[in-house]
């Protein structure tokens, strides 16, 4: 049993971390595009903003448990199976990327417009504006966002346990719910709380360390 719990923890961390990385690979550029193409952005392209905005809102409004089943064909095409921890990464990324895109967009909106104007007055190109001004200036806020994102993804990953995913969620579902073993249920819940706390606290600490505004 102890072994199963250990494996559960590792699987949960694996799913969460890998999904978060992939979700950021997609969500970060999307968030940047949403910000710069918006009306009043540094490079307004309204139709593109609307299209991406619609897709993001659409994916965010589909409940995760439905998305999980719905994207199974895509999961099978990419991973080759719909069962196990690796397979769950696909729906996790699809669910988390739009959420991350919106969080990135809101972090970038916090950047002082005067700083952007100053960079423009120095002749910065749109691309330089993004990677030299917007992202570095929003870094503390982006890090706070990633702490929130990673804990949200962890919560989603537990849900995936019900349809064949791995990790602590599967453990809680299989032992706690199906077999009515309340001790296992309690232990997994406590472990999930601890893992979430660690991710959250470490994330906030890094964000605080990175912020040069408060000393």
């Amino acid at each position: 049993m102890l072994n199963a719990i250990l494996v559960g923890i590792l699987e949960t961390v694996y799913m969460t971390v890998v999904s978060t990385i992939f979700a950021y690979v997609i969500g970060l550029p999307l968030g940047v595009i949403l910000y710069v193409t918006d009306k009043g952005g540094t490079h307004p392209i309204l139709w593109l903003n609307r299209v991406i905005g619609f897709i993001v809102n659409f994916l965010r409004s589909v409940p995760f448990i439905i998305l999980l089943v719905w994207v199974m064909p895509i999961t099978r095409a990419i991973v080759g199976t719909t069962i196990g921890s690796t397979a769950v990464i696909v729906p996790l990324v699809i669910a988390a990327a739009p959420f991350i895109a919106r969080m990135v967009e809101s972090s970038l909106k916090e950047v002082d417009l005067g700083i952007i104007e100053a960079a423009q007055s120095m002749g910065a190109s749109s691309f330089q504006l993004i990677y030299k001004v917007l992202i570095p200036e929003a870094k503390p806020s982006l890090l706070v966002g990633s702490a929130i994102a990673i804990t949200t993804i962890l919560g989603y990953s537990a849900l995936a346990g019900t349809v064949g995913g791995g990790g602590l969620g599967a453990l809680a579902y299989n032992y706690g719910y199906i077999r009515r073993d309340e001790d296992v249920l309690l232990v997994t819940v406590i472990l999930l709380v601890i893992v979430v706390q660690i991710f959250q606290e470490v994330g906030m600490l890094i964000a605080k360390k990175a912020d040069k505004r408060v000393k």
Partner: protein
Amino acid sequence: MSDEIIRVEELNKTFTGKSGTIVALDGVNLSIRRGEIFGIIGLSGAGKSTLVRCINFLERPTSGRVLFQGRDLAELKPRELLLARQSMGMIFQGFNLLSQRNALQNICFPMEIAGVPRADAKKRANELLELVGLSDRADAYPSQMSGGQKQRIAIARALSTSPSVLLCDEATSALDPNTTRQILELLKHINKALGITVVMITHEMKVIETICNRVAVIDESHIVEMGEVKDIFIRPQSKIAKQLIFPQGDDAPNISKAGKRSLRLVFDGTSAFEPIISQMTLDCRAAVNILAANTKNVDGKTYGQMVIQLPEDEVSAARIEAYLKDRSIFFKEEVPENAECDTGRYS
């Protein structure tokens, strides 16, 4: 016109919003000479910030032309426009430093954009830190600096790519009077030492009189007056210029009840600041009565007007007039506006 660096021709800028069209600038013409400190003064909402943003094309004019070093900015390719902006530094009321970079890194920022090698950039940044007197603050982040220090870093940053123009948008408006004075001195020093043209946008007459050579007065989207600072100080024509120069509302000194003969003296800055009046009373051995005075010190010279009352004794009065002529101080006899009332009272 080889000494002209910026030329603005028939510039119009309108903003279209939900509440209709707002005219920010209407038929603005300007010519700014290389190496001068040119002031643009106006009340808030007059359009001066829009004007300065049209000069580096942060705002595209609705119509009209902006020529920088003889080239029409509207005709430049996007890449060329970015390069043109690199030769125009800009500083702001809110400093706009990158909050996540320290002073040195902030100064390096425009050079990174321009593609200056890192080692060269760092060397130049250190020189500029010295120029603005903050060598010891290289590692400080903006949140650790005072307003004056931040503006110094912003100035150093704006100078890092060796621009030929420095645009200052209300650069001292967020600073206390003492810090304002120091920043203005620094700007003056930079103007003299580096020969950089400075364009000052401000709503404070004090800023104009302290450092500017020429000034344009902007009101309700129009340039209402433009010329040498001293000329505008001596004879402000427009209502807004009078209001800015004499905020208390007192126009040039006006005397209504001058019983004896009185003279209006005009100081136009040609005579260096010296105790003219006390010297005059000593030399002529005659006391004069100062009825009104409104003089200002600009650049160590006296500008303004003063009304003095001559002694009744004709000989002394003649001596004083001769003295003033001798010192080439312009004066004219003051005719009391409501002389009739005065006579009535005297009889």
